[in-house]
Each structure stands twice: as structure tokens, then as C-alpha cells.
């Protein structure tokens, strides 16, 4: 089915507009971008390393994990995709994918052909600039993750991760009052942060006991945002948001 996603709900525009200001024409062109809509259940690969896709996946709802696998079969999640993200935007210019992307929850996906995206970018150079800015910020997030995984202790590392997710989700309207749905398992958290599941569990228990976080199922509640930021050494500068603190 080819269709335009209800434009007022299109998280792509909300996402990009958190780091870029569009004109009315540009916003309209993005809204009119043809998409093939699909609902994909959890734990399905949307793409695999080595694929040569001819379309991009816009995540309309749900969570994805971008990952790579070591020779011994161990998975490293390198990024979490949320609504508004195009986790394979780089496939537009890189012929072959060097990573895989898997759904972590049921996801609503809008498939956009490379042809339509190229056409849009040729007609609207500022949209090209916006996507470039998006890609550069993604690079900044990777750099921050390297610092986080390589140099922060587990307690601070997980706190930083929660801060980042809360702000990113806030930017697309999926977090408010320092609370959000974060349906990521402790095993996935371990795969993303380079920790064993046992260690993740101990740290989460400690964070709950310290009053740093509350969890109810997949719901994450942060009772003291300033303290969590302090513990996680979280400075949102690298996210380059036009409105700096979306979670407040």
C-alpha cells in the first residue's frame, strides 16, 4: 500500500525539526513523501549486514536496535532507533550495509524508496542539509557512546543512557515529566552497554534503591532529573537540539 502517513503524526518531521527549521514548502514536501506502510512484529531483522537496499525504513512507532555481531556470535547493539528515525538513511549513499537492524518491539515502518528520497533531496537542497545534519548528529551520538562504554563505570553508564533516551524520546513527544516507555530488555541493555545481564540487573536494582529511577513494566520514571544527569555526566550538547532540554 502506498500512502502518506497522517502528516500531523509524522514523527520524521518532528524529529528533524528538533534539530532543523523547515519552511512550509519543505515540510509539505516531506509530508507528501510516498511511503509503503508495514507493521513488523518484534525481533525481526529489517535488514542485515551485507544487504544492498533500494529503500529506507522510516520508523513511525516502536523501537529498533542497530547491531553488529562479533566472530563468536556476540551481538553489540550500537544504537537504538525510535519513532522518527531512519536507521538505514546511510544506505542512500553507501551501497552495502555494514550493520543489521532488528525490531525490538512491534514497529510501524514507512518504507521510502531511494528514488523518492533522491528526488526529494534534489528538489529541496535544505532537506538534504537537514538529513546531513541528522547524520552528523548520529556520528556525535556514536562518539558519546564510545566514551560512555569505554570510560564510564556501569552505574554512570546506564544513567547516561537513560538521560539520552529520555531527551531523544522527548524530542518526538514520547517523553514528558521525565517519564517514558522504554521497552528495552535488560539483556538488550547489556548488549548495548557492554555489560553482562547480571551486572545490568544489579545496577538497576541499586539505581531503584537510590531513588534515581522508578520502573513499572516498560515505563521509566526519573524522579530527580538533575541528579540523574549528574550521575550520568550527561550534557545534551552533542544532541544539538534546537530546544535544549525536551524532557523538562
Amino acid at each position, binding site marked *: 500500500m502506498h500512502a502518506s502517513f497522517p502528516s500531523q503524526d509524522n514523527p520524521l518531521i518532528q524529529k528533524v525539526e528538533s534539530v532543523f527549521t523547515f519552511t512550509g514548502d519543505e515540510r509539505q514536501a516531506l509530508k507528501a513523501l510516498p511511503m509503503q506502510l508495514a507493521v513488523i512484529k518484534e525481533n525481526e531483522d529489517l535488514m542485515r549486514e551485507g544487504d544492498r537496499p533500494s529503500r529506507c525504513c522510516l520508523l513511525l512507532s516502536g523501537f529498533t536496535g542497530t547491531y553488529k555481531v562479533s566472530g563468536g556470535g556476540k551481538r553489540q547493539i550500537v544504537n537504538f532507533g525510535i519513532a522518527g528515525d531512519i536507521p538505514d538513511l546511510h544506505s542512500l549513499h553507501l551501497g552495502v550495509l555494514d550493520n543489521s537492524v532488528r525490531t525490538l518491539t512491534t514497529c510501524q515502518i514507512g518504507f521510502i524508496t531511494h528514488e523518492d528520497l533522491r528526488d526529494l533531496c534534489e528538489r529541496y537542497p535544505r532537506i538534504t542539509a537537514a538529513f546531513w545534519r541528522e547524520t552528523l548528529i548520529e556520528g556525535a551520538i556514536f562518539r558519546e557512546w564510545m566514551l560512555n562504554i569505554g570510560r564510564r563505570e556501569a552505574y554512570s553508564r546506564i544513567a547516561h543512557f537513560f538521560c539520552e533516551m529520555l531527551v531523544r524520546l522527548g524530542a518526538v513527544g514520547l517523553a514528558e515529566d521525565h517519564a517514558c516507555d522504554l521497552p528495552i530488555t*535488560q539483556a538488550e541493555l547489556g548488549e548495548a552497554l557492554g555489560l*553482562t545481564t*547480571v*551486572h545490568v*540487573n*544489579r545496577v538497576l*536494582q*541499586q539505581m531503584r534503591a537510590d531513588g534515581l529511577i522508578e520502573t513499572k513494566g516498560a515505563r521509566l520514571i526519573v524522579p530527580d532529573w538533575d541528579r540523574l544527569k549528574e550521575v550520568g555526566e550527561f550534557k545534551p550538547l552533542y544532541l544539538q537540539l534546537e530546544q535544549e532540554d525536551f524532557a523538562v
Partner: protein
Amino acid sequence: MSFTLQPVQVATGFDKAGMMVFDEEQRLLAVLVHLSDKNEVAPGQWYLEAGFGRLDGINRPTFADLDAAQEWISQRLAHRS
């Protein structure tokens, strides 16, 4: 390979009851910790809290019991030698 086990209290802040694992030359190979029932991911299992030498690394599995842990340690030492 046979191992000697020696109980130890470990200051993990969570699970205290542990076991030191020595090789035939009484060299410390690993510290296993018995996870409490409060652990939400592997209650009651044994966790490789620390491994030395060939057991050092990012792979820190959990085991159903001490026999399974010793089996894994044996395989790991044999595999790498």
C-alpha cells in the same frame, strides 16, 4: 582438570556468598558468586564474578550449579591451551 573450591564472602554489594576456584597448583582461577533469589535475570545461579588469565574476558556467564561452572572452566582452559 580438577579444581579446589574454597568458600569466600564477596563484597559485590548484592550477592555475598561466593566460591574461589583454584587449579591443581593452587592458583586462583576464578571467583564465582551465588546469585540471590532477588536477582531478576538469573536467580539462584552461579555467576563468574571474576576470571583470571585465560578466564579473563568479557564473557561472564551464569551457571545452574557449581558442576556446570567447573565444566565450563575446564573446557575454556582446554580450548585455549
